[in-house]
């Protein structure tokens, strides 16, 4: 019922606006076309200036309300992020000035040069000098931005430092898998046809001698504060994207074509909670490439911790080889042996 009512109200509003517009057309015919045109011109010329002023007020208010919610309000969480932020500020300054000047000119000219009966327009078809000036200025400004940008681009996409720890990230519909190379610091080979969602989610070839200490985790990745991390990124099914907004980086995960990205985290998760004043703060990995219906829920977490905490965590991880093949796990075998012994003992006691 309320639906029909609201439709009726909306329709009514349209009818009213339409009738007003029609009436104003008749009024303008009565007043004479020329007069009404002049009046419309005055109103719209005035609105130009109103829009300019209110527009800038709006920009200011918007910035006031929203700036604290952007990443620029807090220090970047990686060395790379610092450089991105620095570049952002330079770009904001340059484009900001151009924005303000050109918008003022546009709306000011529109207001100032609105039609007046006795104005003679200035027949001004071209001026080579002016045109050269405004070709040269943007060209020079852009050169500066390009130089800045490319220096960072080559730094970001360049080789990771030698001491970087390496983690393999695999995207799947809809989650993240992380692989650590284990004690030997070398990843075992993998082949996608070996994938078994339950025990071998990235398709590791167990026969490979480097494979047996590889560690797999899901959803949460641990990295160490201050130590560069190199990610080797891949996908199991469709294209995903490892989005690390806090670190100001992202890289696509493409099936069949591994990509890499490296960064150096600057603050632990705990430190970041203090910096942002948000006790729930987490470094989130967002999937930034549409990958299907669960795209919006494809969330991963990065825990940045101190070295000691990382070592503790790592010590608790069990190589996937043993998870997939419990019969090969010395601990599991031992445990199984103990339990068998126990049960045999029990049986023995029962028999007695």
């Amino acid at each position, binding site marked *: 019922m309320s639906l029909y009512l609201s439709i009726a109200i909306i329709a009514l509003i349209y009818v009213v606006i339409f009738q007003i517009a029609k009436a104003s057309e008749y009024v303008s015919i009565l007043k004479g076309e020329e007069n009404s045109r002049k009046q419309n011109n005055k109103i719209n010329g005035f609105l130009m200036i109103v829009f300019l002023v209110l527009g800038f007020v709006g920009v200011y208010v918007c*910035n006031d309300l929203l700036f604290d919610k952007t990443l620029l309000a807090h220090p970047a969480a990686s060395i790379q992020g610092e450089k991105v932020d620095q570049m952002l500020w330079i*770009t904001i300054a340059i484009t900001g000035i151009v924005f303000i000047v050109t918008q003022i000119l546009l709306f000011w000219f529109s207001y100032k040069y609105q039609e007046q009966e006795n104005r003679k*327009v*200035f027949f*001004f*078809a071209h001026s080579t000098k002016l045109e050269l000036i*405004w070709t040269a200025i943007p060209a020079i400004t852009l050169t500066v931005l390009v130089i800045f*940008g490319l220096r960072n681009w080559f730094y970001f996409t360049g080789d990771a430092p030698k001491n970087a720890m390496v983690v393999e990230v695999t995207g799947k519909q809809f989650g993240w898998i992380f692989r650590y190379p284990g004690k030997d610091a070398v990843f075992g080979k993998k082949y996608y046809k070996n994938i078994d969602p339950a025990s071998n989610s990235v398709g590791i070839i167990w026969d490979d001698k480097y494979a047996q200490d590889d560690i797999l985790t899901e959803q949460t990745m641990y990295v160490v504060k201050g130590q560069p991390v190199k990610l080797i990124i891949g996908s199991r099914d469709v294209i995903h994207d490892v989005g690390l907004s806090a670190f100001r980086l992202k890289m696509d995960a493409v099936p069949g074509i591994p990509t890499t990205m490296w960064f150096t985290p600057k603050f632990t998760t705990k430190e970041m909670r203090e910096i942002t004043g948000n006790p729930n*703060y987490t470094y989130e990995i967002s999937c930034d490439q549409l990958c299907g219906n669960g795209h919006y829920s494809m969330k991963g977490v990065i825990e940045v911790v101190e070295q000691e905490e990382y070592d503790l965590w790592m010590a608790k991880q069990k190589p996937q080889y043993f998870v997939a093949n419990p019969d090969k796990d010395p601990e599991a075998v031992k445990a199984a042996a103990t339990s068998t012994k126990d049960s045999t003992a029990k049986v023995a006691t029962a028999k007695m």
Partner: protein
Amino acid sequence: MSHEAVLHAHESHGHDDHGHHEHHDTFLTKYVFSQDHKMIAKQFLITGMVWAVLGGLMSVLFRLQLGYPDASFPWLEAILGKWAKGGQITPEAYYALVTTHGTVLVFFVLTAGLSGTFANFLIPLQIGARDMASPFMNMLSYWFFLAASIVMMSSLFVETGPFSGGWVAYPPLSALRDASPGSKSGMDLWIISMALFVVSSLLGGLNYIATILNMRTKGMSMTRLPLTIWALFFTAVLGVLSFPVLLSGFILLIFDRNFGTSFYLSDIFVNGVGALSNEGGSAILYQHLFWFLGHPEVYIILLPAMGMVSEIMSVNSRKPIFGYMAMLGSLFAIAVLAFLVWAHHMFVTGLNPFLGSVFVLLTLLIAVPSAIKVFNWLTTLWRGNIRFTPGMLFAIGFVSLFISGGLTGIWLGNAALDIHLHDTYFVIAHFHIVMGVASMFGMFAGVYHWFPKMYGRYLNNSLGYMHFWVTLAGAYMIFWPMHYEGLAGMPRRYFDFSIWESFKQFAELNRFISTVAMIVFAAQLLFIINFFYSIFKGRKVTDPNPWKSNTLEWTTPINPGHGNWPGEIPEVHRWPYDYGKDGVDFIPQDVPVGDHESSH
């Protein structure tokens, strides 16, 4: 009008009087299977408007989800059925809406609706030709577009839903039927529709190029062409050179989908299906093929708007466009650069860093011709005598939006920043302002300005003014705050942000944006009402040249028949921008140069 008459008119090019033949027309030949470029233009426009309303409505629906993720709207279930169970849009429906909105707006509205309408309408009228080089091909171009529209429309009704992998349709998501429900038969229809669309735009584009090069009236040298025509010319060239590449990309995709090839597929394990046998393909190859069209496409959308804005701005400032040759040169530079920047959409795909750096340089280079255009428009306004017709307002709005959206292009084109901002709301804000809304403004400017020529009646001015101010303010209110969301890293194409610690803080802002979006959509309906009401009931045009304009279309009768000029086609003696020269308000192109006239 018979077919022979058109041919005859072409052969004798400007020296005959075969203008009026309408008395032979039946309803079918006049309104449906018309070969008159003006009627085809109207067919494109109205079909484009239907899609614009549908596409806009889709955006309202998905903004409803983003703004009110927890609310339930029973009426949604009444309309959408299983796609809105319990009054809430499902993720499947959300992604289908986002995808269809993008596809439809980019291709059907801002390509076919914009170029199709104004290239068809203005080229023959402004260059002084009786019709297109091939009116029959021109008619086919519309019918292929209509076929594409019907197929796309039908994809909305298939059991598994329309395609939902984004308008870019990246494989493997678009190639694997099991990766997403939308990639089943919805994608088959999407791709067929797009293939038909490519054919349509090629038939149109070839025609536009041939017509502009071969059928200009006597005296209409290339440098006397209005900037609209130049812009439409470069647009057509871009389309003809890049759409075939897109089609080839789609054909490979069809093979991967249906015939077991591995152009784009390699090393894939699909949940619930298992490992696929495809090996050795490259998903990135598709992106290269797609963006080789995809980037020129941005300019296919923008250039016609730029051309029309230049023309309308000059007419209503009563001043020549400033720097005609610089405007032309910058159009040319943009058209060339458009082919050399596609990989800036792929900075985060693992692109070779050196290659990336080249694309950074070429991308930022586009800012130079763009800046020239902006400064030239500003100088055109300077010391003019501006009449604020609704068309002029939209032209001014276009420049404002082009500045705002163009400047953020400098952020995104710089690869090191793009790594951070890619696929966030910052990108949404950027391309909606610079390409979406700005081109829409160009289109509105064109419709308001040439409506009297199309229908012999005026649009209602008051509605036009309301439409403009609400849309301009609303567009900024919708898209400006999105820059901030992008600077917080908020990703595009998310159905719901509530599980994200980093992004859920924008819930209130999203509600605000959605509310404004609905108001702006409602204001567009005012335009639609105005348009259809004025076709039949608008104030009649009494002056054949209502805007006191120099170009040739205003030398035709108020309601020109097929063939455009009842008598001979006028001869051209000057460029189209003699406004305010020697104190004379305007001197149309067909007026011979006087003895004492100064040169510009």
